[in-house]
């Protein structure tokens, strides 16, 4: 009987959590127009979230491009299809790896930073102080960060893919000796701007919404203790990553279900 009661209480807790998260997200979106009118706040967040993530994004993109070119080359050699290397690397990056890996890195770098910042603001009663000054922290603090994350994520994913393709070019053409004309020509011929690049950008936009909203929610709902902030940052990475991977499958199925 006690076990059933506990299960029921736990279920109610989970449902309440979903409700709170949904309400929080709706409130966040409701505050976006107001935050857009205070552009300097948004710009500073694009800098903090986007610019300061560039190093990890570009370094990872370059490394992924290098490795992808090598692996694809070894896979294509037996079929004599090495001229397709550029095309395969490009499609892999702009459709999948760019948005997904950039989002996972974004959750680890910018997401944890957002959660810790908001969590510590809560622990230090800065959010309560703001409320007591009749300033809504959701409008003043959360919404500009939300926009900053949503704007930054597609740009970071695009840069990830771009630097990855350049990395693949260096390895494929510079080191392995694949023909540069083939590398770029097939890419130009077979990569569709709207279907491939456009869908990749849409994906990264959705991932940006997920990662930023999760990070802000975890920070806002954290227990105002050092342990609470530590747990919240961990939850940000875990929940964001799982949501990104799950949503990637759904979006891929919707976007590329027909050849």
């Amino acid at each position, binding site marked *: 009987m006690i076990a059933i009661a506990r299960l029921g209480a736990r279920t109610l807790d989970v449902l309440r959590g979903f409700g709170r998260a949904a309400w929080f997200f709706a409130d966040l979106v409701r505050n976006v127009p107001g935050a857009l009118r205070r552009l300097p706040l948004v710009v500073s967040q694009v800098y903090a979230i986007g610019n300061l993530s560039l190093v990890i994004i570009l370094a990872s993109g370059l490394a992924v491009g290098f490795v992808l070119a090598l692996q694809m080359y070894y896979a294509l050699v037996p079929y004599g299809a090495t001229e397709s290397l550029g095309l395969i690397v490009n499609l892999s990056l702009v459709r999948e790896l760019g948005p997904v890996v950039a989002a996972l890195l974004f959750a680890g770098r910018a997401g944890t930073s957002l959660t810790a910042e908001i969590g510590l603001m809560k622990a*230090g*009663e800065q959010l309560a102080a703001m*409320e007591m*000054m*009749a*300033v809504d922290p959701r409008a003043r603090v959360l919404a500009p960060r939300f926009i900053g994350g949503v704007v930054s994520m597609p740009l970071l994913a695009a840069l990830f893919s771009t630097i990855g393709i350049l990395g693949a070019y260096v390895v494929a053409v510079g080191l392995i000796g694949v023909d540069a004309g083939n590398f770029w020509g097939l890419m130009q011929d077979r990569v569709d701007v709207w279907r491939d690049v456009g869908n990749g950008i849409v994906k990264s936009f959705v991932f940006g919404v997920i990662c930023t909203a999760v990070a802000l929610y975890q920070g806002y709902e954290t227990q105002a203790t050092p342990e609470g902030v530590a747990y919240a940052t961990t939850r940000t990475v875990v929940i964001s990553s799982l949501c990104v991977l799950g949503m990637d499958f759904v979006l891929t199925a919707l976007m590329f279900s027909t050849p």
Partner: protein
Amino acid sequence: MPPANRPTSGPRGSSAGLSTDPLIVIDHVTFGYDASRVILNDVSLQFRRGKVTAILGGSGCGKTTLLRLIGGISGANSGRVVFDGEVINARDREQLLRLRRRMGMLFQFGALFTDLTVYDNVAFPLREHAALSEEMIRDIVLMKLNAVGLRGAAGLRISEVSGGMARRIALARAIAMDPELIMYDEPFAGLDLISMGVAAQLIRKLTDATGSTALVVSHDVPECMAISDHVILMAGGGRIVAQGTPDELMNSTDPEVRQFVRGEPDGPVKFHYAAPPLAQDFRLVDRA
């Protein structure tokens, strides 16, 4: 019903004065963060307009919680908190934002924005609410900082100021908008004697000059007694031990009041948290 020997009168000894024109009414309020932890139990109080009211009491008796209920940061489980005739609903954000424009609060640990300078912290509420030129804001900010003796620290970052300075900056920020109600949560904690005296006088003078209402939550009995019109002594569960003018409390014969205002270790208020007997905890009986 308070005991007969406990003062219950209003400011400067006028028992009739307390109930007239209260700015805040706490009406049978019960509050707990969960069912097993009741912080305030059926508390009823009134705070008069234009007066300094000190709320004294031991740690954990619900003084800060009371301020949070008045500010709408937390909502009462039952009962009503009334501000200037309007019942505060902690779920009504529009109402809270409207009423809070008339309130200022000094938080226990300052709650300064660590990404802003001292100047920007004090300017924050002005920039958010007052349609003033930057030149006007500058004058007001420097005036407020001057009042707490920190005009010269305007350009410092929050990480560069000491705990006592942070408290004084928070005080300047709390009074930046000259609100009708200013709630001071431990305004004297961490201040040296000079700063403490200046802060106490600032609270008194500000209340007199602007006609605002001040609620001071503190452990510092001498400072509070020196500047308050009315003093409320609280105990665990939000129980009101006594209230009255500072003189009435200082001269009270009630043992609980006497123990608190004199800081005596022995008396009705126990220093130790409820625990088993020493002999049991240290297993002295078993060893014997």
